[in-house]
């Protein structure tokens, strides 16, 4: 006789997440806010790529939900997006910037980002592809730091072992490409992890180029998305956050 399987309702974000932050209250009730940078650019918001809001807010919520299971982190459950030009930006020392391949920062955003990084902020950049987008991103970062080099972050860097031991850099595909069986969005290009260091040799910007960690975070629960990439994306995400909060 077949055993009856109980009906279990899958929790939704709206009832699984903790309380919302009171906008009138200073940040700090939670030790960590997964903060997304709002910047000016050419891209459109939403599907089709482009813009600061790619995968927003589902990607952010899902990333936090999984991250909190992996890392002992007392984090705010909800998305937290803030403009680079907002003085409150400095209350969030770890910042996530997505799809900067079409960015065009205003002068106020340039000044805000420079001040943020100089003060000790840590920037994680993700999801932009190909030389044209790289050139756009590099141009904008040159406006922030005209003289700072953007260099490869080799695999012996502590960021690859701050939580998980990561032995290779993988190209993480967007979900549509993953479903079609390939990873690259720029036809043959390889994933790079690059970085910018401050004057004392501290890593302050980590750049995930030719890869899309954000999509893996957003679609990790979709059984069609390859486990290999979502695992790597979460490992890399956990490492970047643990590293940023200890270095």
């Amino acid at each position: 006789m077949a055993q009856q399987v109980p009906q279990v309702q899958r929790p939704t974000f709206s009832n699984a997440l903790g309380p919302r932050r009171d906008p009138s209250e200073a940040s700090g009730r939670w030790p960590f806010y997964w903060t997304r940078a709002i910047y000016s650019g050419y891209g459109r918001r939403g599907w089709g790529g482009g813009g600061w809001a790619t995968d927003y807010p589902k990607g952010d919520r899902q990333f936090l939900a999984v991250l909190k299971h992996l890392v002992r982190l007392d984090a705010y459950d909800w998305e937290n997006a803030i403009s680079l030009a907002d003085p409150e930006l400095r209350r969030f020392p770890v910042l996530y910037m997505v799809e900067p391949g079409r960015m065009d920062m205003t002068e106020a955003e340039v000044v805000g980002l420079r001040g943020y990084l100089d003060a000790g902020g840590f920037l994680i950049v993700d999801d932009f592809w190909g030389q044209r987008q790289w050139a756009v991103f590099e141009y904008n970062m040159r406006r922030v730091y005209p003289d700072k080099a953007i260099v490869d972050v080799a695999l012996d860097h502590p960021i690859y072992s701050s939580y998980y031991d990561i032995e290779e850099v993988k190209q993480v595909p967007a979900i549509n490409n993953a479903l079609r069986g390939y990873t690259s969005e720029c036809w043959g290009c390889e994933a790079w992890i690059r970085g910018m260091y401050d004057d004392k040799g501290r890593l302050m910007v980590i750049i995930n180029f030719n890869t899309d960690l954000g999509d893996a975070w957003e679609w990790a629960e979709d059984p069609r998305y390859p486990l290999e990439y979502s695992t790597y994306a979460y490992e890399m995400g956990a490492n970047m956050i643990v590293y940023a909060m200890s270095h």
Partner: protein
Amino acid sequence: MDRIFEFLFKYRPLVFEQGDFSFAAPGSVRLWLVAVGVVGAVAVASYTVARGKSSVADRGIMSGLRVALFALLVFCLMQPVLILSTVVPQQNFVGVLIDDSQSMLLPDEDGTPRTAFLEEAFDPEQGELLAALSDRFSLRFFRFSDVASRIDGLGELTFNGTHTDLGAALDAAREELSGVPLSALILITDGAHNSDRPLTEALVPLQAAGVPVFTVGLGEEIIAPDIEIGRVEMPRAVLEGSALIVDVVVTQTGLGPGTVPIIVEDDFRILAEETVELGPDGEPVVARISLELEGAGPRRVHFRIPIQAGERVERNNSRTVQIEVRGEREKILYLEGEPRHEVAFMRRAVADDDNIQLVVLQRTAVGKFLRLEISDSTELQFGFPASREELFRYRSLIIGSVEASFFSHDQLQMIADFVSDRGGGLLMLGGRSAFAEGGWAGTPVEEVMPVVMGEPAGGDDGFFAEIKVSPTPAGLAHAAVQLGLTGDAVSARWDSLPPVTIVNPISEVRPGATALLTGSSPDLRDDQIVLAFQRYGRGKSIAMTVQDSWLWQMIPPLEDQSHETFWKQALRWLIDGVPAAVEVVTDQEQVEPGETVRLIATVGDSTYIEVNDAVVTARITSPSGLVEEVRVEWTVQRDGEYVVEFRPTELGEYEVDITAERDGKTLGSDRTYMHVAPSDEEYFGANRHTQTLRRIADETGGRFYTPENVETLPDDITITGAGVTLVEQMPLWDMPFLFFLMLTLMGAEWGFRRLRGLV
């Protein structure tokens, strides 16, 4: 006053103090009282019978006066006497101790040095005091400064002693004269006792032997105008680059209100300059000077006030203090219960500090830790130390947001022992899992902390408030809170810093603890204790209750270094004074050639339990490079304490390296330095110390004199001295006072009769 007393009562007050009153006439006192009664009754009866014009009151007054006169006559007929023992002339010895230190050459206001009294009073030809003493006693002379020695005459005095140790002088004289009948010791000095040894140690044997000390105080009680650096309070060792707050005690006399600069310099450059407002005459004021010392090794720091117009003593305007700047890299263990920005920013603040190794053990998941700044791959490989030996390797411990249940009970006790027994520094940071909210109340660590932990606050949502931090008055005087600034700028800088947040409401410090920073918020009924500390056992504990001090780095302008400075100084403060298992110090910062110095070593094992069977060796290197090795012996009186004495002979810096071994295994080693130089100590507090000299005299049964009244000294010793004595009766019936009293009574009766017309 004494002369009037002596005129009226025939003898000086001292005779009355020393003597026992009695009557020398034959017959009992009762018999004499009966005689007084009879004579009195006759007198009263005669007035009662002969009435004349007088009233009852008149007769009462007159008979009373007559009875008093008769009573006085009877008192004289009873031959009142004072019985006291006096020393037998020329059968007793008196030791004369003369101060031979530099301060004796200081001139009084009229320009004559203190030695002038000696030349006059002890002149072999005309010295009246010498003659009077010699007539009665056999005299033995001693000179003293830091040590005392017998001399044959005053010609052997040199007045170049650089210390005065009154106790050592009294000891030496007492011991030298212990075999002879000693009547008294005479101590001639300005009374400036600048030895660390308490005087009481020398006075007790004299009290036991019944030898009185007669003190003669020389010099002026107040030297004016003058300004003096009385004391400089500075630690003997400091970690390189640490901010120091040094207290300089300044006293002026006769200069009046005003300000003077204090210049602080080492052998190469000016380190700081601070203006101090002078206090009223004779009242010390404390100037707080902050400075920073670079470069490891022994350093001599000079504090100087420029000579003021008309100053009487110039050499007391400067002081030099020896300090050892330590260049070691000290290990602090920082345990954090979860990834927090505080870790990154604290590490960033002290990253360029070569003297601090901030070892981080950050829990990232259950049983999983991130280790940073470890010395080797085995360090902390199993998480938080499980043994005392492992934990006690660190100088200090920082506990972040970690719940108490993370630790075993043994580990909690070990943390408490880390402070109380090992002498380490413990710092607890604010956070969701810190203090009462982290279940720390009721653990062995609660008692260690300087703040009172109440019940966990805020219910399920937790407590949260944003506060503005400001220093307390105690904080303004504390190096950890100075932010590299001085004076009013300190408060202003704290005012400029952004608010921070708390999740552990704490408003009370423990008795004996000190709050250095507090925070205020409209959400709080009482001010939040932000930074507080207390001594606990051999170590100290600090509570820093904010959870996001990193905001002081992120939000202010980039040139603001408050966050870095605060944490750099706070962590240096945390490790400051934390002992090593093996340590050596000298009992004096600076000594003179030939002066004895004690090397004191404390020896413990790796768990800081005192070791008494160690082989401790001191290797002493002189300024010229001569090396001497001496064995340092266990003192027996105290566990783990080893002492050896030695006398440096060269001027300059001596280096002392100490090594402790047990069973062929090295327990540890340490180094200290000792500066050998002539001392200026005699020029500090160079006025006459009347109180000290009075105390010596009072406690031994002697008297205090000045050159103005010293002529009675020989007689006084005769009456009060010890040695070979005889009992003497001193008649009192012929005191002029009694004669005047009789005349007064007779005159009063006659005057009364005249007044009342009864003549």
